[in-house]
């Protein structure tokens, strides 16, 4: 099963290496990873999608907690949350196919963000399934390049993921 972990980490040199190193060293499989600043200076938030049984995920969380720079780990898969990923797709687009592509983009509430004589760049955000679906449809026209940000997520409602931790 896939789990989405939110990790608050001190933004110190090597901190991200410690986390990614831990995953490879202990044989945990990272599906995707996104990192960015939080509202608190010096604290970054990583969102890691990891594949594994509940026992493996429990071990992942415990091992992450042992890293001194890690402030908080929460498993967002256990609770209602909003998850999004952004994808940019460069697709072949000759004059004949543009309006067809345009229609697909609108259906998926995406945006055309760049147009050149023989290609377009499309921006689309959402869940895995949505991104996979539009990708599949656009393959028909010829995809030249894809880039994805990795998944980010927030708990629904007023609950937040705070930087406190116990039990190391």
């Amino acid at each position, binding site marked *: 099963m896939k789990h989405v972990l939110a990790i608050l980490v*001190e933004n110190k*040199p*090597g901190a991200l*290496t*410690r986390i990614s*190193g*831990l995953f490879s*060293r202990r044989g945990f499989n990272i599906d995707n990873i996104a990192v960015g600043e939080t509202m608190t200076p010096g604290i970054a938030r990583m969102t890691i999608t990891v594949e594994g049984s509940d*026992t493996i995920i*429990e*071990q992942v969380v*415990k*091992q992450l*907690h*042992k*890293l*001194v*720079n*890690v*402030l908080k780990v929460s498993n967002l898969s256990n609770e209602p949350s909003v998850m999004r990923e952004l994808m940019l797709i460069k697709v072949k687009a000759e004059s004949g196919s543009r309006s067809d592509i345009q229609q697909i983009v609108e259906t998926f509430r995406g945006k055309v963000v760049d147009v050149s004589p023989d290609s377009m760049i499309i921006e689309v955000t959402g869940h895995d399934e949505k991104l996979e679906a539009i990708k599949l449809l656009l393959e028909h026209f010829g995809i030249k390049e894809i880039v994805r940000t990795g998944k980010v997520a927030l708990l629904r409602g007023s609950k937040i993921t705070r*930087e406190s*931790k*116990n*039990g*190391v």
Partner: protein
Amino acid sequence: MKKKMIKGSAMILKALEKEGVEQIFGFPGGAVLPLYDALYDSTLKHLLVRHEQAAVHAADGYARVTGKTGVVFATSGPGATNLVTGIANAYMDSVPLVLITGQVASHFIGTDAFQEADITGITLPITKHNYLVKDIEDLPAVLSEAFYIASTGRRGPVLIDIAKDVFDSEGYFNYELERHIPGYNPTYTGHAGQISRAVKAIRDARKPVIFGGGGLIRSGAAEPLKQIAETGRIPVILSLMGLGAYPGDGDLFLGMPGMHGSITANYALTEADLIIAAGVRFDDRVTGKLETFARNAKIIHIDIDPAEIGKNVLIDIPIVGDVRLVLEELVRKLKPGHTAKWLKQIASWQEQYPLPDGTGNLNGHLKPQYVIRELSRLSDENTILATDVGQHQMWSAQHYNVRRPNSFLTSGGLGTMGFGFPAAIGARLAAPKSRVICITGDGSFQMNIQELATVVNNKMDITIALINNGFLGMVRQWQDMFYDKRYAHTALKGSPDFVSIAEAYGAKAFRAADSKKATEVIEEAFKLKGPVLIDFVVEPEENVYPMVAPNRPIDEIITGGDY
């Protein structure tokens, strides 16, 4: 009042004094020249070794004996990379160390400068935490954090890599012993509800065993362990790392479990209805095939590291906390146990399956087990034994009576050949009044043989008992048992005459090739001052038994020929 600015190198020595450090182990070099220059005027003691690896193992041995944090200095590049094996060893066995390495000057970092190595990168997976200091402003906080992290929670090595220019930069030395580190908050007190569940489980158990490990030693839990065993009438099994937490000749002691454990210990773990696991990590050398391990037992697992709980074995009652504190809490609530029938069963196993003692079928050869039994018989409670790694290590664990905590130093997790001799050096400095013995092999000893110079130069009273069988014995044993006796590169041809080489360094040395002579030279060596090496020429192809083949159930035991 404005404080005076001081140099980085002076800050380090001040920090060591504040942390109560008395002894440093190290080896100088270019990038740590300013630090060694400051040390020249200091009252701190420094032991110069002959290879940086030995400095770490010596600091490790010192830390195990004293319970204090061991301190190591080394230079950049090769000095730092030579520490790696020692650091990994301390990490696996949860030994508190602070390692201070010099790094090339900050403006050279990243340029492949002379003697530059990314030691924080290299040691990332084998340190509890590490730091690279490029700014004098950061130094005091880093030093106090390092000591705090190394010596609290589940202990371990912390490395501080310091750019050479930082040693000479000046700054203010604001030092706090108790640091608040936001991401670091170990749990010491066990959860009361879980402790109550454990008490109930112990009360209901008919066939309980205590299975204790290194956590008992590190947390100083020997006393509550003894009380629980005696009050509950519960037999005690100790892992290699736990030996000494309960006396080796104590009446409830069943020995070590696992691959070379006693048959009784393995049967008891397999038949038990309750295992009280304290400060252990269920290593594969203990559990054998996981699916069949302790199949009849409920398991209580007490450990300071939550990540150890449920890592290898499913746990019924997890208790995160300091092992000593949790056991003390259990003692307060424990009622006398009714285990007479179980203890009778155990006694009958013990009678039926004694350890093969190496006295039978001598064929004129000296048996290694005999040597270790004699060393044990002739040493006292205060003796500290350091072992190397291999067959002699397992024979030591089986046949040496480890009487008290911190008196048996061995490389448990990493299995580092070359650990024993420098660890004995550390023990020598840690416990000036104790006898120190190093039991080693002809393979292991040659991995740090250069330290003969260190012990001779410092007139250290250490008895080196070299179990010389002319083989990398443990590997040869596996080739014998699992690879059709194809002895690929395990015969150690070309070893030196160990007596002559010890004498060349200036140590005293003896050789014994039969039992009578062996006893005589041990008695003689124990009377002498300074380092003494005894070359025990033993039966070359003796195997360690009992043995459980890797990944087999631990009650499926190969007993060897002595039964």
